[in-house]
């Protein structure tokens, strides 16, 4: 069985330039999204029970991520593919999906594993766009996978939204989007493993391999742009203070209507 996990390390927050106000996601601190970590953790759990399983982890990153890649290799991934090129900076999710799709062209897989959510808490856009480009199914918000039924041809999973829990059978190839609520965790490398040389398992890809034209990637290829960013600053906000009387009730009621909550 061949599993490919895809991930894009996320920034530890968004800040903005004062002039012009544009979002800066390219912060020095980047981390693996907990959902992505769950997806890799699940793949490694399958490999632990079925050692013949091939687990490749594909990391799309604008930051140095060799240490992260080595740690993932040390906890059991067969291969970690780093896609890194300054040309790709500022790409939107569709362009990123195209980059990953091209990197996958030469690789066989039965199932692609990804996260379900973005760092902002919304639904991740890259996995469904990759699914559309590859013309395969995508099933996100997975809270559990029936490990015994997981095979090279399909899986049985449970997804969750606010109101319902749904149990699906899905044929492969497909992209499964795991939620951190699945309980799968990316293990830490053991102490004795931490200095093990895993460089032979790390593959670096850049535009010499993927061969995109400059106008096909990066901000030049994006179909939308951020005009301004309004940074929230709760600390500077003075709260409105009302008493818990009829006027206070009236004011809060009006406030909730104004905010579209009522």
């Amino acid at each position, binding site marked *: 069985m061949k599993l490919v996990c895809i991930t894009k390390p996320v920034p530890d927050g968004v800040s903005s330039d004062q002039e012009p106000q544009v979002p800066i996601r390219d912060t020095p601190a980047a981390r693996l999204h907990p959902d992505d970590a769950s997806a890799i953790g699940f793949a490694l759990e399958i490999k632990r029970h079925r050692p013949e399983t091939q687990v490749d982890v594909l990391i799309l990153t604008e930051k140095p991520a060799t240490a992260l890649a080595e740690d993932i290799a040390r906890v059991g991934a067969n291969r970690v593919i780093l896609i890194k090129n300054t040309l790709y900076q500022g790409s939107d999710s569709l362009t990123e999906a195209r980059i990953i799709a091209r990197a996958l062209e030469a690789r066989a897989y039965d199932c692609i594993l990804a996260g379900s959510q973005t760092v902002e808490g919304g639904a991740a856009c890259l996995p469904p766009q990759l699914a559309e480009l590859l013309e395969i199914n995508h099933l996100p918000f997975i809270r559990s996978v029936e490990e015994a039924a997981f095979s090279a041809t399909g899986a049985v999973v449970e997804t969750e939204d606010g109101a319902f829990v749904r149990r699906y059978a899905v044929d492969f190839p497909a992209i499964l989007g795991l939620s951190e609520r699945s309980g799968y965790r990316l293990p830490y490398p053991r102490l004795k493993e931490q200095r093990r040389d895993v460089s032979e398992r790390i593959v670096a890809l850049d535009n010499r391999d993927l061969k995109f034209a400059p106008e096909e990637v990066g901000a030049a290829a*994006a179909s*939308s742009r951020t005009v*301004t960013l309004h940074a929230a600053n709760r600390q500077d*906000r003075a709260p409105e203070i009302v008493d818990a009387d009829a006027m206070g009730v*009236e004011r809060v009621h009006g406030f909730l209507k104004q905010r*579209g909550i009522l």
Partner: protein
Amino acid sequence: MRRVLVIAEQAEARVTPDLLEAARCFAGDAPCESFALVASGDAAALSGWLDTVVSVPAPGTGVEAIPALVRSVAALHREFGFACILMPGSQWGSMLAPRLAARIEAALIPEVREITRSEQSVRFLRRVSRNGDLAVIETVEGAPAVVTLQPRVFSSSGKPDRTTRFLDREGQGAGNSGIRLLRKTENTEQDIRDADVLVSAGAGVGRRIDELKPLADALGGQVSASRSLVNQGIAPRRIQVGQSGKTVAPRLYMAMGIHGASQHVAALAGAETIICVNTNAKAPLCSLADMVVVGDAVAFAQDLLRKIKEEQENATD
């Protein structure tokens, strides 16, 4: 002429007023033809609200039907050339929109809360971080936009005053999608991290936490609790907000009798709006609130609930 399409959520089988209002905002005062796509829903209910309503058969209402629906919308887009395609920001919409944007090579703009049109451009306002940072986005010249709406932000101000034409189109390849729904059950243990609204009880509420439930229900939300109530055994750990509980990002967080230890505050960074109800207006959490109500939390919850119900009754009379 510019054209805008709204897509009804299949499980609900109707176009909601917020989609109609968003379409109206997108059109502005410029000439704009409005379309709705209804997949096996009640097309007639939209008479007067839009210029054209297109019905397509749907192979299902869940994720298994999305690839076929994407193909149907793409075919419609080829026929009419929409400048903007709007859909709800539900889980269903968030699965459909990215695939559709990839299919038709459109700009994907998720969870939009405001659309403004000027002579030169259309701008979309959306949240871009858990801290509540907002970004104004515009599409690159000529690119269509696929937009999901933040729930309950747009409210309808239009009237059903249009002459609507009704069209039928073939579905695009139902068949075996490769995903089969085996079972669907109600989610009895909803997670507070999914809630849009949290009415959260602290030590000031204590054992009266259950009395907050009717207000949470009226606001379409859930009850959560601070660590103090969990440690006392009054509330279960699964509804605890805080560093040792859950980090939440609701649109509204009503802190009822919560002092606001730093561990609690740290888990609220993503809350969009905070209302504190507390007898002590100097409680640490109050300094982060949008509004502070000074008084007893449970009594205020009951009064606010009464007001909400009165308004609802007046609206239905």
